[in-house]
């Protein structure tokens, strides 16, 4: 168990800037991977975690080169090997599982053939042995019916199944070391939990060492024995997983853990100020100095070395870590939200809304026939009160973004009505809406890289809505823009910057400012924090909450992340396959009794705590189409009671907590089942 299979020694990797300066991305990194051990490398985007992981299999991205140090795999330096020598090691000794298996698999070759190829390259088995091995591997990664699975094409599998195939391919060469680069990041919560469980099983079963790279401390907590925390190209903290997660003695890790929203806490997580320094901008002192609340003048001048602390078996790069140990720090705290004084006026009503992506066929149009009997989104009834934050939650394909688009008028509804302020009907066609209604409903998108015009300055971006709705110009326009920037806590000097000059969090704040420029009544937030790093996510959530408290805006908040939803929302609507399952005040939806689907979702949430294991109750198969009859969740429901679920649409039941559940099981019975 204590045999070291790969060790990185004083590794620095860098590139030459346009001005000929040498800029390092990794600085003096040293770590060891022991046999049979799973090491989690965690850090925000740009921290160098992927560069480190790839260097561990002897791969360095184009444009980068090693400055010093070595990567020893079984006492051979990978970075000095020729590509011939590396070929013998990659796949056989060290295998990699990519982030997006859907893109890593060749789309026009069958799954079986692709695994066979890996076997041909890395083993000496003959054809019949290989065929046997393929179904053995598919069995091992728990894919349903391995015999037929081998004859399928990648696009016929769901995202989780594709990831399993990638795991099977990596295992084909019986590697000693498995490298996983964000293997579950693109997957749905329930699928993610299942894949992680599989990885943990494989690590134990085969004794393979794993390097698990992720930005998600929740996922890292589930699989790792040891955790390495990276910040700005350095290891800042390294030690046993439990110690790192329970008693983080580096201020960055501590802040990171605090900024993750947790299911058990209702309020907003604390945010960390600032953002990670760019490579090459650190000249002296500690790289975390700017954002650290323990920093002293000593930290500004001197950069700390990695210090080993015996009693915790931990390496830490901080002068003041003792203060963190001495402080009686509680990770389980949050900022309490002001409860919304919603005046119970309904601003937006969705009544029997159905949305279909299917185009009506020409002949059906002539005969006035409705062609799609089974629309993507069906029978949505939600009344949204003024000043509240209502969250729509569900996995991908649950129709949550579709509903948001049709509220914004970007997608026509098939049936039903959207009513706005005093029961006034809102046209489902954008062009038929009056300018004031368009102003009143604003959108914030998931990815600020796509939602901000890259060729506009922040000033131009923010002036668009101000010019359009309020006809502002000159000094007044400028004053308004500065005000908006102030609201999202950005300085005046940001006006002349282009989006590419901003960090992810800053970009999203500009997007928030643009939405608020219209002085809207309702803001539709589409996964607004999903593309951001955790420490930045908390800051954006805090700004959104602050603005809401100040201005009384109503939010419709779409997210797949239940913990984030818990932190920000007043009311939650759970969707599955475009049908409502449960709706109610958020503190009650997170309590039992709940709809079986909510139960599955809650069980799959990954918390950054090694003691809280996900509860896997339902299969992680993904359904492509909503069922035509009966309950929408019939295909995966762990509490299915019989034919009634397949045939009849379940009735709404209202629990004593005020949350409405759509299930055939009596609500009291459900409560006792879920105890």
């Amino acid at each position: 168990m204590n045999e070291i299979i790969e060790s990185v020694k004083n590794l620095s990797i860098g590139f030459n800037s346009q001005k000929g300066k040498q800029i390092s991305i990794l600085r003096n990194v040293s770590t060891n991977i022991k046999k049979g051990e799973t090491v989690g490398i965690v850090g925000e985007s740009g921290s160098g975690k992927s560069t480190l992981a790839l260097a561990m299999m002897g791969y360095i991205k184009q444009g980068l080169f090693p400055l010093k140090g070595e990567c020893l795999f079984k006492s051979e330096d990978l970075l000095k090997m020729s590509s011939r020598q590396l070929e013998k090691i990659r796949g056989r000794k060290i295998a990699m599982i990519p982030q997006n298996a859907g893109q890593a698999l060749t789309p026009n070759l069958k799954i079986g053939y692709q695994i066979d190829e890996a076997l041909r390259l890395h083993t000496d088995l003959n054809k019949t042995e290989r065929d046997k091995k393929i179904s053995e591997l598919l069995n091992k990664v728990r894919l349903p019916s391995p015999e037929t699975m081998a004859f399928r094409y990648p696009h016929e599998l769901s995202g989780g199944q594709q990831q399993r195939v990638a795991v099977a391919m990596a295992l084909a060469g019986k590697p000693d070391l498995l490298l996983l680069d964000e293997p579950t990041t693109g997957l749905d919560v329930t699928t993610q939990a299942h894949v992680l469980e599989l990885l943990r099983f494989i690590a134990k079963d085969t004794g393979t060492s794993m390097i698990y790279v992720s930005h998600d401390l929740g996922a890292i907590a589930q699989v790792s024995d040891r955790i390495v925390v990276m910040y700005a190209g350095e290891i800042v903290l390294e030690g046993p997983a439990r110690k790192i997660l329970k008693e983080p003695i580096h201020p960055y890790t501590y802040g990171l853990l605090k900024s993750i929203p947790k299911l058990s806490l209702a309020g907003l997580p604390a945010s960390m100020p600032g953002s990670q320094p760019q490579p090459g901008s650190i000249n002296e002192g500690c790289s975390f100095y700017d954002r650290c609340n323990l920093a002293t003048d000593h930290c500004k001048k001197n950069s700390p070395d990695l210090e080993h602390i015996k009693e915790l078996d931990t390496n830490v790069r901080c002068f003041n870590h003792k203060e963190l140990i001495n402080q009686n720090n509680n990770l389980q705290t949050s900022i309490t939200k002001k409860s919304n004084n919603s005046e119970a006026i309904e601003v937006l009503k969705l009544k029997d809304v159905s949305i279909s992506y299917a185009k009506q066929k020409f002949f059906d149009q002539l005969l006035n026939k409705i062609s799609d009997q089974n629309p993507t989104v069906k029978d949505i009834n939600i009344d949204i009160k003024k000043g509240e934050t209502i969250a729509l939650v569900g996995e991908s394909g649950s129709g949550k973004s579709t509903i948001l688009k049709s509220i914004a008028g970007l997608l026509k509804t098939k049936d039903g009505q959207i009513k706005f302020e005093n029961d006034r009907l809102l046209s489902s066609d954008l062009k038929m809406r009056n300018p004031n209604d368009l102003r009143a409903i604003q959108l914030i998108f998931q990815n600020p890289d796509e939602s901000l015009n890259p060729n506009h300055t922040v000033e131009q971006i923010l002036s668009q809505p101000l010019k359009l709705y309020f006809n502002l110009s000159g000094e007044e326009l400028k004053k308004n823009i500065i005000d908006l920037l102030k609201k999202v806590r950005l300085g005046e000097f940001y006006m002349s910057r282009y989006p590419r000059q901003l960090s992810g969090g800053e970009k999203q704040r500009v997007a928030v400012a643009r939405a608020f420029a219209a002085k809207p009544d309702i803001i539709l937030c589409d996964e607004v924090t999903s593309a951001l790093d955790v420490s930045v996510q908390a800051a954006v959530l805090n700004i959104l909450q602050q603005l809401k408290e100040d201005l009384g805006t109503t939010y419709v908040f779409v997210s797949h992340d239940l913990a984030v939803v818990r932190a920000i929302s007043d009311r939650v609507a759970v969707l599955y396959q475009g049908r409502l399952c449960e709706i109610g005040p958020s503190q009650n939806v997170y309590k039992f009794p709940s709809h079986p689907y909510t139960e599955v979702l809650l069980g799959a949430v990954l918390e950054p705590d090694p003691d809280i294991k996900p509860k896997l109750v339902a299969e992680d198969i993904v359904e492509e189409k909503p069922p035509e009859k009966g309950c929408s969740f019939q295909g995966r429901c762990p509490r299915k009671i019989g034919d009634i679920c397949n045939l009849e649409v379940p009735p709404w039941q209202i629990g004593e907590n005020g949350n409405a559940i759509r299930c055939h099981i009596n609500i009291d019975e459900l409560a006792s089942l879920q105890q």
Partner: protein
Amino acid sequence: MQSNLVTEDKQKNKLEKSFEILKTMASKPSGLIGLTIVLFHVVLALISPYIAPYDYKAISPNTMLLAPSAEHWFGTDSLGRDVFTRTILGGRTALTVTFFGSLIALLWGGLLGIFCGLVGGKIDDVVMRVVDAFLSIPWILAMLLIVSLLGTSTEVLIPALGFFYGKGIVRVARAATHDVIAKDFIVSARARGHSNMSIIWNEIIPNVRDAILVEGAMRWSWMLLGFSSLSFLGFGVSPPTPDWGLMISNARGLMSFAYWSVIAPIVGLSSLIIGINLTADAFAKALGIDRSTKAPV
């Protein structure tokens, strides 16, 4: 920390930005050569009337088909005119006509392409089929028809060339627009209720401008070749105005014994075309557009 990066990447006004692009273009040998050739031709076209040693239309039976000498650097042609004088003057009409022709092509092709890309649907279908239909007509036949009906004046040639070379730009502009309109900032502008014109002007043009400009530069060199072909066939510039295409056409019969009268205009024409091509490629690289990944249309 972030601010360090930003001070490096300071705000640049438009002039500084164009200068920066020129600098990047000139930093590679091919770009530098291209720029030098184009600059040379443009300067020559501007000053040639003042530096020409002889009168370009002075016919003299005494100096017919003289070989290159100290007096006549590039020799003389079959009518006794100085080839050097005619060569340095010969690019003027071609450059002017094709430059304005390209501008027209860029304008109508670019705007129509962007519009079709944005609105999509039936309008897009109809317009694109019409453009396809025009693409299938051999341009030189159509040009010959127009020229024989309306004459060979520049007022006819510029819009006619502009029209025929703009068809391809429609497709490029439409494809570039398709890349942009899928982005959320267009959706956002739509949801805010901006008009189509405002979306085209504010959101799309800044993002497709580069691709269209590069395409326009490319079309310029093709148009130059096309214009010279027209002159060669006798449908471009009318004699005695000096023009490369016309000079090549007149001198090619005498090539076997008076090579000088045909070589000079050929070198002039091909060097300008190569120069524009190299410049367009360097321009594309400086703007970060990879032409090799985009199929030429």
